[in-house]
C-alpha cells in the first residue's frame, strides 16, 4: 500500500490525491533514499534476522513489476499470457549478456550496465511484439497455450546453447552497480530494496495513469467485448498489441533489474514457477486493480516465506512438509477461482464474474 495511507492525516492532505501520483512521489522518495544510501558513506546495520525478509522483499518488488505488467495484459485487456516468464528471462539474459565481464561460460560483452538495461527492455518489448503479432488473434485459452509454448521453447534454447547462454550455469559476472556503490552488505540490501521498490512504485504510477485515462477505458472495453469496441471506432488490435508489448517491456525491465541485483542469470531463475506465482498473486488479489494484484502477490509470497518458518513447529517431516506446501498453494488457486473469482480485493462486477 502507498505511503500516504500510513502517514498522519495532516501530511496526507497535502499529498496528491490520486493513487498514481502518490506512487510517483513514493517511488521518487525511495529511489532518492536508495541513491543517498548507496552513494554516500552513510552505512546502515540491519538485524541479521531480517535479511531473509529483505531478500524476499526484493524479489517481491521485482515480481511486483511483473504482476503489474501481467495485470495490464489480463486484468485490463483480457489477454491470457501464460508465458510471462519468457519476457522476464529475455530481459534478464539481454542485460546479463551485454554487461557481464568474464562469464564462466556463455557470452559477456562488458558494455555499461545502463546501456544493457535499456537494451533489455527493448529486446523484451520486441519479443512481445513478435509474439503479439502472431498470437493475439487467437482465442483466450489458445493464446495461453501459444505463450506457454513460447516460454518452453526459450527455456530449452537457454539450456541447450551453452556457448551462448551458459547452459544451466547461466551467465555469471553481471555487474551489480548498487552493491558496488554501497559497499557493505547491509546497506546494499536496504538500498536495493528501496531502489527496485521505487521502480515498482514508478511502474505502479505509470500503469495507473494509463488505466485511469481514456486509454484504459478502451482496454477495459476490449476485455468486455472486443466487437463492440471495434464498432465504436477503436482499433482494438493496436490496443491489444500495445498492452501486450508494454507488459512484456515491464517484464524485461524486471528481468534486467533482477540481473543487476543478482549478479547472474540462469535458467533456474526463470521457470514456469515464476509465471504460476504471479498469476496466483494476481488472481488472489483481484485482477484489474493495481493495488489488489500487488497485495495478492504479497500474500502468496508471504505465505511461502512464513511456511518456511512454520516448518520449525510443524509435526511432519521436512520432506512431507515440502510437498504439503505445494499442495496448499495449488488448492489456494482452486479455491480462489471457485469462491472468490474476483480475488480478495477485486470487484466482481468489474470482472463480470459471479461471486
Amino acid at each position, binding site marked *: 500500500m502507498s505511503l500516504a495511507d500510513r502517514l498522519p492525516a495532516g501530511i496526507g492532505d497535502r499529498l496528491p490525491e490520486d493513487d498514481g501520483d502518490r506512487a510517483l512521489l513514493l517511488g521518487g522518495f525511495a529511489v532518492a533514499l536508495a541513491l543517498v544510501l548507496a552513494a554516500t558513506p552513510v552505512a546502515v546495520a540491519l538485524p541479521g534476522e531480517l535479511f531473509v525478509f529483505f531478500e524476499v522483499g526484493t524479489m517481491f518488488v521485482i515480481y511486483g513489476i511483473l504482476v503489474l505488467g501481467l495485470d495490464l495484459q489480463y486484468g485490463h485487456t483480457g489477454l491470457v499470457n501464460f508465458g510471462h516468464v519468457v519476457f522476464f528471462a529475455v530481459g534478464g539474459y539481454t542485460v546479463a549478456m551485454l554487461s557481464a565481464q568474464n562469464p564462466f561460460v556463455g557470452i559477456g560483452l562488458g558494455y555499461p550496465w545502463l546501456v544493457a538495461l535499456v537494451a533489455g527492455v527493448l529486446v523484451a518489448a520486441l519479443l512481445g511484439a513478435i509474439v503479439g503479432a502472431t498470437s493475439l488473434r487467437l482465442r483466450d485459452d489458445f493464446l495461453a497455450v501459444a505463450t506457454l509454448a513460447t516460454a518452453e521453447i526459450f527455456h530449452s534454447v537457454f539450456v541447450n546453447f551453452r556457448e551462448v547462454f551458459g547452459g544451466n550455469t547461466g551467465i555469471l559476472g553481471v555487474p551489480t552497480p548498487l552493491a558496488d556503490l554501497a559497499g557493505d552488505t547491509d546497506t546494499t540490501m536496504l538500498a536495493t530494496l528501496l531502489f527496485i521498490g521505487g521502480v515498482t512504485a514508478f511502474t505502479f504510477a*505509470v500503469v495507473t*495513469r*494509463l488505466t485511469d*485515462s*481514456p*486509454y*484504459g*477505458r*478502451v482496454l*477495459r*472495453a476490449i*476485455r*468486455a*467485448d472486443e*466487437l*463492440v*469496441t*471495434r*464498432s*465504436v*471506432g*477503436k*482499433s*482494438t488490435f493496436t490496443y491489444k498489441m*500495445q498492452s501486450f508489448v*508494454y507488459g512484456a517491456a515491464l517484464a524485461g525491465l524486471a528481468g534486467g533489474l533482477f540481473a543487476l541485483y543478482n549478479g547472474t542469470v540462469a535458467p533456474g531463475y526463470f521457470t514456469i514457477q515464476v509465471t504460476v506465482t504471479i498469476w496466483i498473486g494476481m488472481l488472489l488479489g483481484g485482477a484489474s486493480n493495481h493495488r489488489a494484484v500487488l497485495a495478492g502477490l504479497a500474500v502468496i509470497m508471504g505465505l511461502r516465506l512464513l511456511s518456511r518458518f512454520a516448518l520449525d513447529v510443524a509435526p511432519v517431516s521436512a520432506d512431507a512438509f515440502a510437498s504439503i506446501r505445494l499442495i496448499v498453494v495449488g488448492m489456494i488457486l482452486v479455491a480462489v477461482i471457485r469462491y472468490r473469482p474476483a480475488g480478495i480485493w477485486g470487484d466482481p*462486477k*468489474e*470482472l*463480470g464474474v459471479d461471486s
Partner: protein
Amino acid sequence: MSLLDVNGLVKEFGGLRAIDELSVSVERGELVGVMGPNGAGKSTFFNCVSGVITPDGGRVTFDGDDVTGDPPEELARAGMVRTFQNTRELETMTVRDNVRLAGPDQPGERTLPALARTDSMQTHEREVRERADHLIEAFELDHLADEYSSNLSGGQRKLLELARVLMLDPDLLLLDEPFAGVNPTLTKEIAERIRGLNDEGMTVVVIEHELETLTELVDRLVVLQQGSLLVEGEPEAVLSDERVIDAYLGE
C-alpha cells in the same frame, strides 16, 4: 449519389448462401426499414455492410468510397455505426463509461498523451464527459449512470446502446432490431427518437422483425427473402404486395 450503395453482395456459410446477389442503396437523409422472415439474411446483410464479416462477393460503397471488407472500426470512424440485435453492453463497465468510450478522436486514447495527461486530452475528455452526460440524460438513464450496465433491463440496454452510438455523431446509423424485447411504451419512445434523429438529417437503416412499428416509422421498406431482395418501396405498397404476404404467411 447514394450514401450507401450495396451491389451484388454475396455471403456463404458452409455452402449455404445467406446473402445472394443483394443490391440495395440508401440515399442521404433517408430512413429505411429492412424486413424479412427469420433467416432472410437481415443480420448477415448488416454484418457484411458494417465489416463484422467479410462478404464473399459484391461491393459496398459508403459516401462514394469502396469500403467492401473494411473493418468495423474504420467504418465507424468514417461515419457508419451500428447496433446489435442482441444488445451488446460492455457489462463490466458503468453506463457512463459505456457512453464515454464511444467519444471519437480522443487523444487520451494514445499512450503518450494518456501518460502526460496533456491539456488537449483533458479538454477533450471534459467535452466527452459533457456530451455523454447530456446523452445519458436525454435517454433518461441518468439515475443509472454509475451502475454497471449488467444491471440494466432489456429496454434500458437498447437505450444505452443508442446513446453510445450517438456519441459518434454518425452519418449512417444501422439499427439491428431496436425494438426487440422492448415494451410498447418504450418501443414508441425509441421510435420517436429514431424519427427525431432522422429529422435532424441522420440517415438511418432499421432492421425489424416486427412490422407495425417499422411501417409507421420508415420512408421506405426493403424486404429480404433467402438472402435476396424480394420487394422494395413505400411501406403501404410493400405491405400489400402478394409476395410479401406469402413470405410472412409462409413462415
